[in-house]
């Protein structure tokens, strides 16, 4: 249905092939968080890899920072309809985390856990093969607290709620278990190119 009198800004311009349907381009970096912004000191920071209930490896901040670092430049898409192009990140790929722990693929599904109790589920296939990382830097600087610092998950090809802020662990699960937003009306997978915003979209 055409809306009377609406022409729109069509902010994508030359980049319109990089803007998924229903999204609009922003230059700034909005912050959306469901609760207070946690304060996480790197001295106390820990990252835990679990298979089901069992912890198989725990890294301190310095141990984690000693893992191989990878840079990524990616477009990101938030379910609230903003998209931001060419964001630059540096961190440790999920492949390198699993390799350091000597873990391959115990199950097909992963839940990311966070310091604020947030969680999000992502299939292993979407985390592995260089598709995702635990990001420690954004735009050449340590990740700001508002954006999930000291560390957040980065899964840039899915809606950005999957890129869980203040991440402190990955847990392999037998089944695809809904995380925080996935249990509160948002899509279980969240592909922006298929507009998988809400449950059953």
């Amino acid at each position, binding site marked *: 249905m055409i809306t009377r009198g609406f022409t729109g800004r069509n902010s994508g311009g030359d980049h319109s092939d990089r803007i998924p349907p229903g999204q609009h381009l922003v230059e700034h970096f909005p912050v959306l968080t469901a609760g207070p912004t946690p304060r996480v000191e790197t001295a106390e920071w820990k990252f835990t890899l679990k298979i089901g209930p069992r912890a198989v490896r725990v890294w301190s901040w310095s141990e984690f920072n000693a893992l191989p670092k990878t840079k990524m430049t990616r477009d990101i898409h938030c379910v609230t309809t903003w998209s931001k192009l060419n964001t630059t990140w540096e961190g440790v790929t999920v492949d390198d985390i699993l390799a350091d722990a000597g873990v391959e693929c115990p199950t097909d599904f992963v839940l990311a856990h966070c310091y*604020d109790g947030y969680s999000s589920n992502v299939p292993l296939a979407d985390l592995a093969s260089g598709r995702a990382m635990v990001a420690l830097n954004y735009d050449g600087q340590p990740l700001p607290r508002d954006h999930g610092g000291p560390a957040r998950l980065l899964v840039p090809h899915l809606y950005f709620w999957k890129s869980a802020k203040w991440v402190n662990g990955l847990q392999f699960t037998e089944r695809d278990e809904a995380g925080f937003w996935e249990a509160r009306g948002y899509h279980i997978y969240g592909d922006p190119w298929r507009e998988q915003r809400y449950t059953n979209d």
Partner: protein
Amino acid sequence: MTEGNARSAVWQTCAIAKIIQQTPSIKSFFLRLSEPFAHIAGQHVDVRLTAPDGYVAMRSYSIASSPSASNVIELAIERLPDGEVSPFFHDIAAVDDEIELRGPLGGHFLWPERATAPILLIGAGSGAVPLMAMIRQRHALAQAVPTALLLSSQTQRDVLFADELLSLEMADPTFKLALAITRETPKRATDLARRIDSVMVAEVIAWLPRMPAHVFVCGSNPFVNIAADGALMAGLDAAVIKTERYGG
């Protein structure tokens, strides 16, 4: 705790029934639903505008009206000078125009089903919208749960739903209203003539008979951070503080 939205929310066409200028920058749009729904106070709808060339713009807007049998919902939309959708609503949209929306959406920022322990609401500007739905719901159900609203606005004229809030406070001893006015001197002696800070949050918490069991904060990201940090400093647990921040 899965709430709402078990089915996918379908798009529907609704007609603008009424438009009211609420403050210099905020208008209310009353939308007549073609497929009525019952929302939970705090939820939002997604609005979809389509240009003749097929370009689509979507935004989320909180519902200001309380859940009721009515098939009309109220959205209160602030005109953002650099916006794409809000200037359309303010400058072009007219009564009887048709708008596409879907909802109700959102399963976190929700008025509790059984509201018994005190509730603290903190908002700035149009962040009052989902909080107003909660206050209206509380009033409609004659709930006596002690509730305080701390609402920050630039001037007296920017206080969204001012008349309604003031008369609710007059009529209901269990509802407290604290207006923070940041750019002029407030009218009432009990109002606060400064920007939000942790002392202000503690003062408003002290108006409640007991520590709140639920805190809802809505506004810009910096405002929400100050409000939520103030609630934490006052001794509240992070788990009881729910926030909604303006998106991009």
